[in-house]
C-alpha cells in the first residue's frame, strides 16, 4: 500500500489510523449475530415454492394437503393478497409479493408454507399442486427485443417510491426504461474523423455471491410489523413494507444485525414483503432463509449488449463517442432503471468529447430480476470504452498512457450535461496505476499490460441523519443507519466521531440499525456511507463538542477561543476538565448525557451535496496478464488500483476494499457467467458450475495506491471508495490481453472464448495476407 500523502502531523487522533475493526474479534470468534442467529419466540420456518417455468399462467393451486399437514400453520398464495395493493418495487412498482395468476421467471415464488420446523415446511411444500399453462418465453435480450416478442409485462409503468429518476418514460414492448443524453453534432464528427473504432460487445449476467444469502424474519402483529433482515437499506424497506401493508411508517420496525456481505444484492427490498405476508397469515414470526440457488434468482447483475463507436483525430485527439446499451433486468425492474442510467452516465468515459450520444435501454426478460452489484453501470461499460481508447492509440501509434494524459478531463470538466464536473486529478490517478505495473518496461512474449480509468456516479441520494450520545462516563454511542455489511462502516463511523471529539476510537460504539431508534439514512450503497452518513456523524459529534465547550466556558469562565480540546478533555490556561466531569457538572448529578444530531441533505447548509452526483468515484486500475495461446488461459500476474478517497479515514479498510473489489473484478472478467437456457432455466446455480475466484486465482501482487487530495464532500475531505476497482479492473485485463495480442469483445474471458478468438485472428490475418 502506498499513500501519496501522510495525514498532517499531530492532528489525527483517530482519522487516518488503521485501527482494528470493531467487529473483527466477535466475527472471528463466531459471536457476531447475523439474522440467521436470531430466534424470536414462537418463530415459524418458511419454505418457498418456486415456479419451474419462466413464463406461465397459473391455472390452479391446490394447497389442501399442505394445509392439512401436522405442524403447518399457514400457506400463502396470491389469493391471500386481495385486500392490499400487492405490488412493490422501489423503481417500478411491477412485482407482486407472490405470483398472482402468472409467473414471469423460473424461480418466482408461487406459494409459501410456514411450519413449526424447516423439515415440516419443506415436506409440506412438496404436496402443493400447481397447474401451469405455459407461455412463450423471452429468456434473452435478443428474444425480448424481437418484433414479435412475448410481453413480460402488459400494463402501464407504475412509478415506485424511490426511483429518483424524474419523469419515467412509457414502457415500449419489453423496454421498461430508457435513459440518454447528447452533446454536439455526433454525425458530422464521425463523418470527418480520420479514425473510427466500433464494435458490438456482450457482458454476462453474474451473481453478487455474498457469503450470507438473503435472510428475513418478519412478525406481522396486526397493528405493528417487525422485520429482522439482511438488508442494506432498512429505511427504504420500511417504506415499501409500510406502503404494501397499509401501516404508518412508525408502526413498521426494521432491525438489521450484521450482514455477511451484500455487494448490492441486499439493496432495496428483496424477501421482506413475502416474509411479512406469510407472517400476516400465520400470526407468528416467520423466517425465510434463501438457499444459494434461490438467492441467485432473487437478484443478479444485469447482462448487457452494447454497440459503441469512438471517433478520433490522427493525432490521437478523442472527438466523439456514440453508445447504445441494452441491459437485461429480468422479469422485474428491481434497480434496473438506476443501473441503466448509471451505465449511461459512465459510457462516455472521462474524456472531453466534442460530441457524444448515449442511449441506454432497460429490458424485461423471463429471467430472475437484476439489480445492484458493486460498481454497477461502470463495470458494464468501462471495459468497452477503454478498449476503444486503446484501439485508437494503437491505430495512431501513440502510447496508451499518453493518449489518456492528453484527453482526460481536467478538474471541473463536464462529464455529462447537467452533472457535477470532475472532482479529482484523473491524470494523477491513471499515472499511479500505470507506474504500479511498470508501464513501459520490456516484457517477454505472451505478456500484456493494460490500464483503464472511468467515473462512477456515486453517493446516491444524499440524505442521512445521525445521532451521537456522550454519556456521563465519557463513552460515546453513535446511532447511524449505515449497514455494516463487512466494509467496516461501524469502525469508520466510530473513528469520525472520535476524531471530532479528540478521544480514542475504542471509547466509541456504533450500533446496528433499528428504524424505531436509529435516525434516517437513505441507503448503504453507491460508496456513500463514509461520505454522506459519515458527514452526518461528524456534524452530530460537532454538536456534542459544542455543548462540551459551552459547559467548559461557563465552568472556567473563559471565552471559547481560549479553549483547546485533546485527550477527552477541554483545557484552558493549563487547567483540563475531562468530558465526564463536564457532563456531570452540566446536569448536576451522575447521570445525563449530551446528544448531538447531524443531518445531510441535498440543499441547505451542506452545500457540497447540492449537485449530483455526490462525487465521482474514480475507477482506475492496471493489470499485467500472461496468455497461454495454446489453451486460451489468461493468468493475471499483478494488478494495481487507485483509491482516490480524498482522505482515508482508515487506510487499511480502504486497502481491503480494493482487494475485495479486485477479486470480484477478476471473477467478472475471467470466470463468472450465469447461463440461462432458452426456456429461462438457470443452468449453473451451484459453485460446481458457477466459478468464483478463489485464493488460487489471486494475482502474485496487488497494489493499491491511496490518493488523498482532501477534495471530497465528506468528513475531513473524504469521499467514498471500494467500488471503482471492480469497474476498472476488467477493463485493464481486457486491455492487457489485447496488448498480448487478443482483442476480446465478450466477457468473461473464458479460455475457450480466448482460444476461439486467437484462431479467428489467425484466419483473418492469413486471409488478409492473401
Amino acid at each position, binding site marked *: 500500500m502506498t499513500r501519496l500523502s501522510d495525514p498532517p502531523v499531530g492532528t489525527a487522533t483517530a482519522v487516518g489510523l488503521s485501527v482494528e475493526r470493531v467487529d473483527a474479534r466477535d466475527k472471528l470468534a463466531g459471536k457476531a449475530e447475523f439474522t440467521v442467529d436470531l430466534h424470536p419466540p414462537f418463530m415459524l420456518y418458511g419454505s418457498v415454492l418456486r415456479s419451474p417455468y419462466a413464463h406461465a399462467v397459473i391455472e390452479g393451486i391446490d394447497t389442501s394437503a399442505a394445509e392439512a399437514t401436522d405442524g403447518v400453520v399457514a400457506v400463502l398464495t396470491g389469493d391471500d393478497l386481495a385486500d392490499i395493493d400487492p405490488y412493490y418495487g422501489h423503481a417500478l412498482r411491477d412485482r407482486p409479493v407472490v405470483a398472482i395468476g402468472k409467473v414471469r421467471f423460473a424461480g418466482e415464488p408461487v406459494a409459501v408454507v410456514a411450519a413449526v420446523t424447516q*423439515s415440516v415446511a*419443506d415436506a409440506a411444500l412438496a404436496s402443493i399442486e400447481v397447474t401451469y399453462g405455459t407461455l412463450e418465453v423471452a429468456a434473452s435480450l435478443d428474444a425480448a427485443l424481437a418484433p414479435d416478442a412475448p410481453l413480460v409485462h402488459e400494463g402501464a409503468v407504475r412509478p415506485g417510491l424511490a426511483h429518483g429518476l424524474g419523469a419515467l418514460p412509457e414502457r415500449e414492448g419489453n423496454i421498461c426504461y430508457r435513459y440518454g443524453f447528447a452533446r454536439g453534432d455526433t454525425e458530422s464528427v464521425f463523418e470527418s474523423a480520420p479514425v473510427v473504432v466500433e464494435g458490438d460487445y456482450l457482458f454476462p449476467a453474474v451473481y453478487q455471491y455474498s457469503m450470507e444469502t438473503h435472510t428475513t424474519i418478519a412478525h406481522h402483529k396486526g397493528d405493528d410489523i417487525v422485520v429482522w433482515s439482511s438488508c442494506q437499506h432498512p429505511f427504504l424497506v420500511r417504506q415499501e413494507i409500510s406502503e404494501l401493508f397499509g401501516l404508518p411508517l412508525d408502526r413498521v420496525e426494521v432491525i438489521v444485525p450484521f450482514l455477511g456481505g451484500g455487494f448490492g444484492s441486499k439493496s432495496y427490498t428483496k424477501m421482506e414483503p413475502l416474509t411479512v405476508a406469510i407472517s400476516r397469515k400465520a400470526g407468528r414470526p416467520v423466517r425465510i432463509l434463501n*438457499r444459494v*440457488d*434461490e438467492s441467485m434468482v432473487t437478484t443478479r447483475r444485469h447482462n448487457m449488449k452494447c454497440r459503441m463507436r469512438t471517433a478520433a483525430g490522427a493525432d490521437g485527439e478523442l472527438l466523439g463517442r456514440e453508445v447504445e446499451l441494452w441491459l437485461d433486468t429480468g422479469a422485474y425492474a428491481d434497480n434496473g432503471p438506476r443501473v441503466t442510467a448509471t451505465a449511461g452516465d459512465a459510457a462516455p468515459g472521462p474524456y472531453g468529447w466534442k460530441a457524444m450520444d448515449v442511449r441506454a435501454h432497460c429490458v424485461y426478460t423471463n429471467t430472475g430480476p437484476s439489480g445492484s452489484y458493486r460498481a454497477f453501470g461502470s463495470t458494464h461499460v468501462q471495459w468497452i470504452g477503454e478498449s476503444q481508447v486503446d484501439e485508437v492509440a494503437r491505430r495512431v501509434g501513440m502510447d496508451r498512457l499518453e493518449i489518456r494524459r492528453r484527453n482526460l478531463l481536467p478538474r471541473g470538466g463536464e462529464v455529462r450535461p447537467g452533472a457535477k464536473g470532475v472532482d479529482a486529478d484523473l491524470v494523477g490517478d491513471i499515472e499511479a496505476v500505470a507506474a504500479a505495473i511498470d508501464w513501459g518496461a520490456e516484457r517477454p512474449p505472451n505478456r500484456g499490460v493494460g490500464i483503464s480509468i472511468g467515473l462512477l456516479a456515486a453517493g446516491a441520494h444524499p440524505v442521512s441523519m445521525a445521532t451521537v450520545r456522550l454519556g456521563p462516563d465519557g463513552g460515546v454511542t453513535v446511532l447511524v443507519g449505515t449497514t455494516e455489511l463487512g466494509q467496516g462502516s461501524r469502525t469508520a463511523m466510530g473513528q469520525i466521531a472520535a476524531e471530532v471529539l479528540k478521544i480514542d476510537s475504542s471509547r466509541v460504539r456504533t450500533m446496528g440499525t433499528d428504524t424505531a431508534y436509529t435516525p434516517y439514512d437513505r441507503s448503504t450503497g453507491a460508496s456513500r456511507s463514509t461520505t454522506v452518513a459519515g458527514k452526518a456523524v461528524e456534524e452530530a459529534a460537532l454538536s456534542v463538542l459544542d455543548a462540551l465547550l459551552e459547559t467548559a466556558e461557563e465552568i472556567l469562565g473563559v471565552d471559547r477561543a481560549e479553549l483547546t480540546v485533546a485527550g477527552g478533555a477541554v483545557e484552558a490556561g493549563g487547567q483540563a476538565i475531562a468530558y465526564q466531569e463536564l457532563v456531570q457538572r452540566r446536569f448536576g448529578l451522575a447521570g445525563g448525557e449530551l446528544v448531538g444530531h447531524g443531518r445531510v441533505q441535498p440543499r441547505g447548509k451542506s452545500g457540497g451535496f447540492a449537485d449530483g452526483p455526490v462525487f465521482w468515484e474514480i475507477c482506475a486500475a492496471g493489470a499485467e496478464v500472461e496468455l*497461454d495461446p*495454446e*489453451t*486460451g*488461459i489468461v493468468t493475471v500476474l499483478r494488478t494495481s488500483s487507485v483509491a482516490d478517497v480524498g482522505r482515508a479515514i482508515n487506510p487499511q479498510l480502504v486497502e481491503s476494499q480494493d482487494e475485495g473489489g479486485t477479486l470480484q473484478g477478476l471473477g467478472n472478467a475471467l*470466470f463468472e457467467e450465469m*447461463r440461462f437456457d432458452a426456456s429461462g432455466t438457470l*443452468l*449453473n446455480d*451451484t*459453485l*460446481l*458450475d*458457477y*466459478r468464483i475466484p478463489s485464493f488460487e486465482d489471486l494475482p502474485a501482487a496487488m497494489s493499491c495506491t491511496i490518493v488523498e487530495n482532501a477534495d471530497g464532500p465528506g468528513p475531513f475531505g473524504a469521499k467514498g471508495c471500494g467500488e471503482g476497482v471492480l469497474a476498472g479492473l476488467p477493463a485493464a485485463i481486457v486491455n492487457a490481453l489485447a496488448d498480448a495480442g487478443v482483442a476480446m469483445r465478450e466477457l468473461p474471458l*473464458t*479460455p*475457450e472464448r480466448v*482460444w*476461439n478468438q486467437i484462431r479467428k485472428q489467425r484466419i483473418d490475418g492469413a486471409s488478409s495476407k492473401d
Partner: protein
Amino acid sequence: MKLPPFEVHRPTSVEDASRLLTELGDDAVAMSGGTELLLAMKLGLASYGHVVDLKRVGALRSLEVSGDVLSVGGGVTHRELETSPLVRSLFPALSSMLADVANLRVRSVGTLGGNLCFADPHSDPATFLAAMGAVAVLGSGASSRRVPVEGFSVGPYETVLAPGELLTGVELRLPGPGTGVSHVRMKTHERPTVTVTSRVEVAGGVVTSARLAVGSVCSVPVVTDTASSLLGSAREDWEERVARCSAATAEAVEPVADADGAVGYKSALVEVLARRGLHRALELAAGSAGAGGVAP
C-alpha cells in the same frame, strides 16, 4: 436443492454391507465419504431411501506396500493417501495429483474408492489410475474379483459393480527407477475439464514403456494406444515423436461437448496437454525422479 430424508445403515464388515445392499435392492446405495453422492441427492439427481455408510468397515481402510505393489483400501480418503509418508516417498506423483483434487474439505472426507464408484466423467484419480494400469479389487465378502481400473467405469456414473458388490481396494504398481509419471489437467469450473496422465519408462536412453490416459473429456477415461509410438525412441527423437503422438491422441479421443467447451476446443486441449504431459514424464524418467506437476 435440499437433502431429502433417508435411512442410514452402518455396517462394520464387507459381508454385512454387501448383504444390506443386496437385501435393500435398487432403493439402497453405498456411501463412502458422501462428497459426491450427497451433493447429487441434494440436487435431486439421485434419490435413495437407504444409504449404506461404509465408513465403519475397517477392512476398507488399509494402506500397504507389498513388493512393488501399493494396495489402497476403498475407504482410504484422498487426504490420507496424499499425506501418507509411504506414498510421498514411494509414489510422489500420486501424492501430488491428489493434492490438487477438489479442496481440503472434500479430500479429508472423500475416498479414492468412492471417487471411482461414483464414476463422474470428470475425475483426476480415475484418469491417473487408468494410466497406471491399476487394478480394482471388487468383493462381496464371500467372493472377490479383479478388473482393470481402465474398464471399471462403463459410462457416466456407471460401473461394472454387480448388485451387492463393493470396490474393496485398488492396486498400483510403484514407479521404479527410470519411470516418469505426470498428471496435467485444466479446469474451468470446480471439476476438471481435461485430465491427461502419462507414465513412461526410460532405460539405456530409450523409451521402454509408455502409457497415456485421457480423462474428463469423454464419458469415461480413455487409455489410448498412441503412446506405444514412443517406444524405442531416444531423447533426440522425443520432440517429433511426442508431437505426433499427441496429435494422434487428439484424433483417437472423441470428446463430448458440454459447458466446459465444444468438441473442437477439447480436442485441441487434449493435444496440448498430452504433449506437455509426455514431455514432463519423459524428462522425469530421464532424470529418474518420480514426481509430476498438475498445471497444464
